[in-house]
């Protein structure tokens, strides 16, 4: 169990290779193999969670091997309170995703092979602690995603796939320049932990084009992650990619891939350049506000159910950004309010987990109705409640979770983000409560149009949600409810790590103000 983190990454890679060599007509064999591989990964993730020591905020289960000594590149893995929940979420969603993809008929072998490769890429990003390795995994996700959207997607899939690819690559190239900047200023190393240690001092006073190098790097790296989140105005790839992607891929895109952006900002921007967080926090909170309002308004205007859910993701990630910006409350000039900073940052991290489960649920449910009706036009349904009571019930639950009703996990994390940000960004927080209103409006309005009213005659023989589909949704629903009522276990898990990040930001602030 020494190399448990490597196992998490290499099992799906091996799985992808094995699947690629299975005979191409044995569709079921391929499906079961993929389920077994992702299931095994999920079990390992759970074992990791049980062995993880939540009282220790630093990296655990570290692995370190030399790789390319001439450039100081090593293979370094580690997990802490920030990445562990994400690894668990990845394990779970990829496992569930196999069953969501059960009905894929076209080129099953290619699909699952790429699917497992994507899995490895995502886990790799969460676990790697060497920038080179991090970057490789970051990019390894792109190719499978391109094919998964481009080959198995909807009518506009080719355009959506290349747009996704170009946007993300543009971001990652800027990120690469930022990484190289860090490499040179911090003593020619790609080791993230080492850079974290050295960066605040090493970057002090370094100028690029007469500007502070740290600020330039901060922005370069931020853009790379912001495209993934996606932060307005880099969000236009998202609705398209979501709508065109097959259901399982939308689930993963919303459930995990967007989280990589938030994760990256916290890990890299916050962890390495905490000084500049103060400089940018106002902007971050403002971008959060724009995301919340813009995403909400766009969602309200959609007639396509899947697009609505896609825009709701933009709306929800806005809360996360707001919570992240709240960290600066810990700074001396902002009154050193550690409690607010804790609430904000934990809220942001909790929000990304919750959005992962809730949006996954929403996309699966949209997929269920699409499978039967072959369209997703909100106004094209009506009165489905009478034909599919179970489906209606579980969709109601998902929609309520999505709109942040108390009792669901989304409420807890959104409230935490607001509470954290309130002392520092009062106006912005007050304005972004409008987002909650919009949030409720678009979900409830859509729900009403789809499920209530007169039954559309076309769908009088609509089949009820089946067992396999229920199996994919129910675990997510349970988690959402559980954390809505009792968020303690999650917050305990991340607390030590969050405190460490906050301490760093707070320390730098005091140090800078002296």
């Amino acid at each position: 169990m020494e190399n448990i983190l490597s196992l998490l990454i290499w099992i799906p890679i091996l799985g992808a290779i094995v699947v690629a060599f299975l005979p191409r007509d044995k569709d079921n064999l391929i499906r079961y193999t993929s389920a077994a591989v992702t299931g095994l990964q999920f079990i390992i993730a759970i074992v990791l969670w049980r062995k993880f020591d939540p009282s220790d905020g630093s990296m655990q289960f570290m692995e370190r091997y030399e790789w390319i000594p001439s450039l100081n590149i090593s293979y370094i893995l580690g997990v802490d309170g920030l990445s562990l929940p994400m690894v668990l979420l990845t394990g779970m969603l990829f496992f569930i995703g196999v069953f969501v993809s059960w009905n894929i008929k076209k080129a099953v072998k290619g699909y699952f092979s790429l699917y497992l490769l994507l899995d490895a890429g995502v886990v790799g990003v969460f676990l790697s602690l060497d920038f080179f390795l991090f970057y490789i995994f970051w990019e390894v996700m792109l190719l499978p995603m391109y094919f998964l959207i481009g080959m198995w997607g909807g009518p506009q899939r080719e355009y959506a796939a290349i747009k996704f690819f170009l946007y993300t690559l543009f971001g990652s190239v800027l990120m690469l320049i930022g990484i190289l900047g860090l490499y040179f200023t911090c003593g020619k190393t790609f080791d993230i932990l080492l850079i974290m240690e050295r960066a605040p001092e090493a970057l002090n006073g370094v100028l690029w084009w007469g500007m502070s190098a740290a600020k330039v790097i901060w922005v370069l790296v931020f853009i790379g992650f912001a495209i993934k989140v996606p932060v307005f105005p880099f969000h236009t790839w998202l609705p398209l990619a979501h709508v065109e992607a097959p259901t399982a891929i939308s689930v993963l895109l919303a459930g995990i891939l967007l989280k990589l952006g938030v994760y990256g900002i916290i890990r890299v921007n916050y962890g390495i350049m905490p000084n500049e967080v103060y400089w940018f926090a106002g902007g971050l909170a403002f971008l959060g506000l724009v995301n919340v309002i813009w995403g909400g308004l766009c969602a309200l205007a959609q007639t396509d159910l899947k697009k609505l859910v896609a825009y709701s993701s933009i709306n929800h990630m806005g809360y996360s950004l707001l919570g992240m910006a709240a960290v600066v409350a810990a700074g001396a000039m902002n009154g050193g309010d550690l409690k607010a900073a804790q609430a904000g940052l934990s809220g942001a991290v909790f929000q990304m987990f919750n959005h992962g489960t809730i949006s996954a649920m929403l996309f699966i449910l949209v997929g269920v109705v699409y499978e039967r009706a072959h369209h997703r036009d909100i106004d094209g349904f009506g009165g489905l409640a009478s034909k599919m009571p179970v489906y209606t019930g579980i969709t109601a639950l998902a929609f309520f979770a999505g709109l942040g009703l108390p009792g669901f996990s989304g409420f807890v994390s959104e409230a935490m983000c607001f509470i954290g940000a309130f002392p520092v960004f009062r106006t912005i927080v007050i304005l972004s409560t409008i987002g909650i209103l919009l949030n409720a409006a678009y979900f409830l309005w859509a729900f009403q149009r789809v499920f209530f009213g007169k039954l559309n005659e076309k769908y009088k023989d609509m089949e009820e949600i089946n067992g396999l589909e229920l199996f994919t949704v129910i675990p997510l629903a349970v988690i959402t409810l559980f954390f809505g009522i009792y968020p303690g276990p999650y917050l305990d898990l991340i607390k030590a790590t969050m405190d460490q990040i906050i301490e760093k930001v707070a320390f730098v602030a005091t140090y800078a103000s002296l």
Partner: protein
Amino acid sequence: MTNLQSLEFFIPELILTITILAALITDLFVKKSKTNMIGWVLGVGLVVVGLSVHNLSSAPPTTLFLDMIVIDPFSSFMKIVIILSTLLVIVASWVNDELEKYRKGEYFTIMGIMVMGLFLMTSSVDIIMLYISIEVVSIMSFVLAAYLKLDTRSNEAGLKYVIYGAFSSGVMLFGLSIVYGLAGSTNYFAIQDTLSSLDGSANPALIMALLMIFAGFGYKISSVPFHFWTPDVYEGSPSTITAYLSVAPKAAGFAMIIRFFHQVFSDSIGLTSNSIGSTDLPWPEIIGVLAVVTMTMGNLVAIQQKSIKRMLAYSSIAHAGYMMLALPVLSMEAVESIMIYLFIYVFMNLGAFFIVIFVKNKTGGESFEDFEGLGWKMPIVGAFMTLFMLSLTGLPPTAGFVGKLYIFKTLVGAGSEFLWLVIAGGVNSVISLYYYFHVVKVMFLGGKRSDVITYPPSTMFGLMIFTAVPSLILGLYWNPLASWVKDSLVFYNQVM
């Protein structure tokens, strides 16, 4: 070193000469259908040449033939790159159906002579020798470009190539003669000596000379604005020759530029504006702008191409641009990054061209339509092509990324005045993704599942594997390459 003493260090070239003669003579005795055999002769000869180059690479750097050429680890590295690409192209020529109508004897022999010219290009330290070697390579390329004599486009390619080549080498010769006039010597080291003691009054002449010389260099590596020949020549030539022209002369061209600027115009820090004689010409900025224009032009025009071969021609212009990015720095680190890029570029670019050849053999065309559904009919070829496209774009975990990483690393490390070059390079890689993935899109996204899966014939398959494996592996583990390049970073330098 005197002429006679030099011979001992000139063994690779001597073996090559014997090989060329042997190839010519063998050609007299074989039937038209058996002319592939001459390829064998040349191939075996080149392997022996390669071994003897390798043997000499550990010898201390020295000049030969009264300071005409040098041998140093840098030139040995470039020679091995050239041999490697020639060998791959020879094998590809066996299976290129375009050539079936013709005797291949002269074809292989001329290729051998071209290798000779390329060898001299990488190692000359005298402007006369430099000029002669460029001409040897150019004239051989003209003939090879027009080798399909029944095909009008091939003839057009040859003719265009001659006109552009003659013009640019004329301009270059003019520039070289001005340098000779200023320095009174044809030897690099003597020139450097004199130039560094010139006062400002010679500046106009020196600047003129430099720009003219760069016309010749730019033509060889197809840098904007001397690139106009590239697309037409690349499109019309036999595909194997296109592949060859996009790799070997480019490598030698870069070797020549590096040696020229490094030994005539740079100091220990690298190429900076104050190290070029006493001119105030912002030389690094000029090369920087040319590099950016080269890759942007190459990329933007590549997007609009309908033929994959032509698209690859423009893409090779763009790749020349990426490599040129490191020239304004010209520190040892910059040279290292160009060498690594070149080595990797050989594999990924040749690989892409081999697949074009393979598809042309099958379908008779090389446009995007001919690639439609390729990924479904021949998944292995499709996968290889995707790998090459990924690598040419520069996405990890392929080798192309490592090449770009080294170039970008050099620039970021050289200071913030070169940062705009990195950003330009990065944006260009994103642009290039669009057209490279157009190929992938056509191969996979367009087609339908086919019931019959075909595999390429074994020679072609071998070539694909031989180019694909390094294109992937060097992206994950390039320690041996890095240390080999590091060992080869030794120039002969009289000042030392």
